[in-house]
């Protein structure tokens, strides 16, 4: 009797995947409740509303907060550039309306609606766009003219 209980306990402990998922859902559930309670007071206009990536309209950008996805998927996406504080832009939807192509770190990556739904973002501000790519915003016109000069020189 005691032995059986011990093995069952062991199985439960070994199944780290399940534990991880429970912890994660607990965490996300709490933060979700938090946003519900606090938002009406702080942001009456809804400017800084916490939302998910799939809600971005085509052409809009968001700053990534967290990925509520299984560990392996999360790790994979992070190596593709979906890290916290990254600027993500919804570029286009596939002809059928799903998946959507997102621009992150200069690459284009397609995600289905249900994956994008698990990625939390906040709307990007002008500073975010600048912070994520300081060089690009510093003197874009200067660099464009430099590139044009280079091209002309090549000719």
């Amino acid at each position: 009797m005691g032995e059986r209980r011990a093995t069952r306990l062991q199985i439960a402990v070994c199944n780290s995947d399940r534990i991880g998922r429970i912890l994660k859902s607990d965490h996300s559930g709490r933060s979700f409740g938090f946003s519900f309670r606090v938002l009406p007071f702080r942001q009456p206009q809804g400017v800084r509303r916490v939302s998910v990536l799939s809600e971005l309209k085509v052409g809009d950008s968001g700053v990534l907060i967290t990925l509520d996805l299984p560990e392996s998927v999360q790790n994979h996406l992070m190596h593709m550039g979906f890290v916290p504080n990254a600027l993500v832009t919804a570029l286009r939807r596939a002809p059928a309306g799903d998946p959507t192509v997102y621009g992150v770190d200069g690459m284009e990556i397609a995600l289905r609606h249900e994956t994008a739904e698990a990625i939390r973002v906040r709307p990007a501000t002008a500073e975010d766009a600048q912070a994520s790519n300081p060089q690009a915003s510093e003197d874009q016109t200067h660099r464009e003219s430099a590139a044009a000069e280079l091209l002309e020189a090549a000719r």
Partner: protein
Amino acid sequence: MSSCCEPPPFKPPAAPPATALKTVLLIGPPNSGKSTLFNRLTGLRQKVANYPGVTVEQRMGLMAGVGREDLTLIDLPGIYSLTPYSEDARVAVDVLRGKMPGTPKPDAVLLVLDALHLTRQLMLAAPVLEVGLPTLVLLNMSDLMDSRGGHIDTLKLARELGAPVAQISATHGTGLDAVPLFLHQQTNRAAAKPLALPVVGNAASAHSWAAQVSRRTGYQAPLSVENSRKIDNILLHRIWGPLLFLLVVVGVFEVVFSIGQPLSDGFGDILARAADLIRPLLPAGWIQSLLLDGAWKGISSVLVFLPQILLLFLFIGILEDTGYLARAALIADRVMRTIGLNGKAFIPLLSAYACAVPAIMATRTIENRRDRLATILVTPFMTCSARLPVYMLLIAAFIPNIAFLHGFLGLRTIVMLSLYLAGFVGAMTTAWLLKSSILKSSETPFILELPQYRMPTLWSLSLRLIDRARIFLRQAGTIILCVTLALWVLAHLPVIQAPGGAISAPELADSLIGRLGHFIEPAIAPLGFNWKIGIGLLSSVLAREVMVSTMGTLYGADPGTQALSLQTALHHDMTLGGALALMIFFAFAMQCTSTMAVVRRETNSWMWPAVQFLYMLVLAYGAAFVVNHVTIAIIG
């Protein structure tokens, strides 16, 4: 096509010189240009395509391109991190760590990074350098970097990473001197102790480290080119996207048929004339008959399709190299989802139009095991280029050349496209059946990187075609030669001794092969096939195109049809119903030993190829039966 698509057996150098350095590894993120560089460094053939996950297993070659024939270069699938996400990435990580059985431990590493997206690509640098092997960091695509106004201080980067850094362009072959220089240093000098890099545990810290390094080295990302997005505005347009996709597919087959056919006919004439030239040189008698009517006729009946197969490979090569395949996967994702798979499964299915063997290996990029198995099981339904000779022969023989739409679309093209469609529908239906029954699984997220569009280089396309032609010719010289010789012998035994003592061959129907054909005839008669077609079906289990050479040899051995062309000779044995039934049989049946072998290897059991073979055989038989009887009912 059998044994097609498998790289030639690799032979290590006979006597490796007594240096510590023997094996060099190419590693880097997907789509960073490793395979192009591999071609540059080895001069060996290697499949290069512009979508992530093309190199599905490690390939080896001698570094002859930089004058180091004593070194072995291994090309690996692209990886994003050392915690692999899919099967192909697992291979790469195992080889890097020297844990791959059958692959030598690497002595040095060439880390290829795409300079255009360096910040993200640097995330891979820390864990790779941490492995502790002497490493040369190659910043690829420096040509585009310069022309678009990007900048990086390579010296500073080298100091940050504790490893030499060089800017190269694999496409143009510039800056490659750094590789032999680095290798020379490694051969003649004990490796310096690697710099201690910050330990980067998770992805977030790896990213912040990479961002810091790129900032300290003055990295300026080049202007992103809007061309790719502009092209995508059309190719991924809600209406034009799918329409253009269909147009591309129809156009490819129309061109293969309308341009390829005259090319093939011309090539066939040359082959026939060559036989006529040789004929007087050989002594008349059985040797001449064996060589010319047996072997040559059999081989050349398959060889004539080489121009068309090369055309098909050219078009699929262009689609792959430009980066369009990834877009096709995106367009197809919605359709694939309804059958329970995702868009990634569509890429192997598309390349299966060329050959199922590399397509089945390409399924390694599919992360979900059950999805991968389902894709492997349905891939042989896709119309591979080995079916093309059979279709071409039967269509040219039985379908009249009627033009529609002012000559844009011919009846022959329509029949051809319907056969392709039949294969596609067979694949989709089977996948749906599998995914809604035995291979049901929870969905794995669909994550697909869309590479920038690139102009395919003439060089990589011609490498591809030369490679393909070589495989095709080798096949013709081995399997097809053996089968045709065996058939010729069987068709001429047992010899008959005439009363005068002269020895002659029996009537074809009385020969060994004829008796075998008659033995199986009752089984295939309902499909509208006679015993000669039956022999063709038996031999085509080895590889589909053997069917054509078998028919060539059989008709060559029969005095009644010897002088006729294969197309005319077929009319002796088949009605329209039988011809259509034969085509649909080929559309569904799994007649390819190399596909079975690769399925066995990838699924690690004989059960799946056996199930697949039986399932497809039953389906092919049923479909051929229906087609034959419907045609008879309509035509009367």
